């Protein structure tokens, strides 16, 4: 289609990437409902190239076709290109956390799952918690991360499974089985998978209206204590998660 001779493959790839990004930017700039022809004209790209890039971006779900099949808009997956902006928890929610901290001798942490990514929004000031970026980058080594992974079992863990300690679950099949258990029981547990002596327990905070996963409430403590059944502790944790749900959803 283009008048130039076809460039060699390595020279062509950067241009294709640039074009794809330009198409994405054009959909954002022109607003939803922009058509393939309009994008092609605005970017001065050959039509066939534009159609191919659009179909690729739709296949990867960064873009969606609107029901008239002509217009394009940003897909939900494009949200993963931006860092989710998570507001700090409300005073009422912080009061629930303070109440729980008063009743247990464990660290109490709260993570938000806005944008399908775990973000620590309230760390216990008196107890150490893991580095915040670990939750986003290696969700499979923390109880809060496992809760999120169990909710979206089909989403592949990006970047593979890295071993932090000898207890880290680095086998995908074992992790999948563990996540199924988490989805079943609603309780995630991590014993020494990130630091050998520490572990945590987490339960989900769900929206009262549609049951979607909003946040996770976690207790952190010594690994051997986490491994115990902790029935009463888990009940207490679930009760507080229930009180948090109308405040966070």
């Amino acid at each position, binding site marked *: 289609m283009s008048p130039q001779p076809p460039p060699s493959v390595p020279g062509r790839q950067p241009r294709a990437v640039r074009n794809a990004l330009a198409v994405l930017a054009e959909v954002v700039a022109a*607003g*939803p*409902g922009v*058509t*393939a*022809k309009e994008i092609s004209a605005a970017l001065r790209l050959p*039509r*066939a190239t534009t*159609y191919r890039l659009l*179909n690729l971006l*739709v*296949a*990867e*779900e960064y873009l*969606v*076709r*609107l*029901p*008239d*099949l*002509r217009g394009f*808009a*940003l*897909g*939900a*997956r*494009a*949200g993963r290109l931006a860092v989710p902006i998570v507001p700090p928890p409300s005073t009422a929610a912080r009061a629930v956390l303070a109440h729980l901290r008063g009743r247990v001798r464990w660290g109490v942490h709260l993570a938000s799952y806005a944008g399908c990514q775990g973000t620590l929004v309230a760390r216990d000031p008196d107890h150490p918690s893991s580095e915040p970026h670990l939750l986003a980058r290696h969700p499979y080594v923390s109880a809060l991360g496992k809760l999120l992974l169990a909710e979206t079992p*089909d989403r592949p863990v990006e970047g593979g499974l890295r071993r932090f300690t000898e207890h880290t679950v680095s086998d995908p099949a074992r992790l999948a089985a563990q996540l199924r258990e988490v989805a079943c029981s609603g309780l995630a547990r991590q014993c020494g998978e990130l630091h050998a002596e520490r572990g945590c327990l987490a339960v989900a905070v769900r929206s009262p209206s549609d049951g979607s996963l909003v946040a996770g409430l976690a207790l952190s403590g010594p690994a051997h204590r986490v491994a115990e059944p902790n029935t009463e502790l888990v009940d207490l944790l679930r009760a507080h998660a229930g009180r948090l749900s109308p405040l966070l959803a």
Partner: protein
Amino acid sequence: MNYSTRIANQVRGQSPMAGLDRRNLGPMQVFAQSVSGAAPAAAMAVVPAIVAASAGAATIWSVLIATGLALLVAGCIGRFTRRMAAAGSLYSLTAKGLGAGPALLAGAGLLVGYSLLGMASLTGAAMQITALIGGFGVTPAASPVVAAALVVVLAGLVAACTVRGVRLSAAVVLLVEALSITLMLVVFGVLLVSQGIGVDSRQLVPSGTGLGAVVAGVLPALGAFIGFEAAAAMGVEARRPFRTIPRAVGATAALTGVLSLLAAYTQVAGFAGAPGGLAGQQQPVRALAAAEHLPWLSTVLDAGVATSFLACSVATTTALARLLFSMGREGVLPARLGRAHRRFRTPHVAIAVALPVLAAAPVVLIGLGLSPARALVPLLTTAALGYLVAYLLVCLAAPVFLHRIGELTVVSVAATSVIVPVLLVVLVAFVSTAPVSVAALVTGAVLPLVGARYLWMRARRPERVAAIGLYDETSTADLLGPPLPPRSEPPPGRGSAHRRERARPRPPPGPQR
């Protein structure tokens, strides 16, 4: 118009296909669905001999041309499936290109194709299983009562696994089809090796075979590909439908082509010395196995074909149920068919209606005294007729669809202008050579029904005609951004589609306007 009103004008809060197990099947499962629909194992055993009857030593060339044609059809289907995720397969796709009337014709073709292929695969599976049991020296296996009972049992199994969840049926299909292809590769691999290394050059540069003979062989060779579009019905359920479905259909055409080429080459080479060659053989693979003193290969072949038929029956039932489901949602068929099971998320009513019919027809045919092997022939030829009509229409629809959405390309026009005349010729040749009885009977029964239904809907329920081509549109959950104010709509799947349409007189936005 600002951001949200521009979108809110056309995006619904919920997909019209809601109720199915949305976006939950991996690429391999979708691929297996398509491969099973084409049932390459059965084709490998039977098709080369039929092709050889006209093409002789040039059989592989006929198969090669047929593969090219199948890839072109896959390309035409891909132009739709890259852009819309439908459950109604070629019926919903045709609607977006050519509108309601041709869509109904394609839908009728698919209904006939899926139903009869389903019946044929149940019959074929029962026949192969009785042959397998018979091979172990159990005598009553050959009786028609056993064959009929097996058909009923198999239909029950198919019903159980298709209702229980699309993930289960897809896993079964993947496993069984993989087993089937492995068995067939063993059969043909062993035959090829035992025939000795060395290329049979007479096949590559055939002398004494005219171009006309090669072309005549293309028609039966295309039979090997029938059903390869089955993945197009998984639009709602595939995880990344716009990527996996076009790939699955294209790869199935390629895989079926390669397997058929292997089968054709092996068989033609094996009978090179025999008088009349491959064309004169009734059961070529069995004869080859016997000639090479490898009788166990026949058992492996039976098992390979039996598993292929089994997977095919699950795959076609899955596709048929989703076609009926789509038509139920649109109101073209009774709205009950458009219900989805709340827990299993499958079109259970459509399956419950379809499977008894699929099982009853073979039982009646066997009851009338037809042997399963003879019952297969009219079922398969009539099914092929239905599929060919649907393929023809979807290929014709592809460039029209692209033009409607403003994305017409030269390639799509070129592909259609090659494939449509070829398919027309194939269709005419098919009708003129097919045995009159069953195909004519089915056409005579189906066409007036479809025509009457269409005219009635156009006169009395124009909103249903406008609804034809419902697919899994983008809904608010798929969009980036804050949730839009919900439009008041009863959730589909519970209320009837009928009521839904009355409550919402505006036809769904589509390229028709």
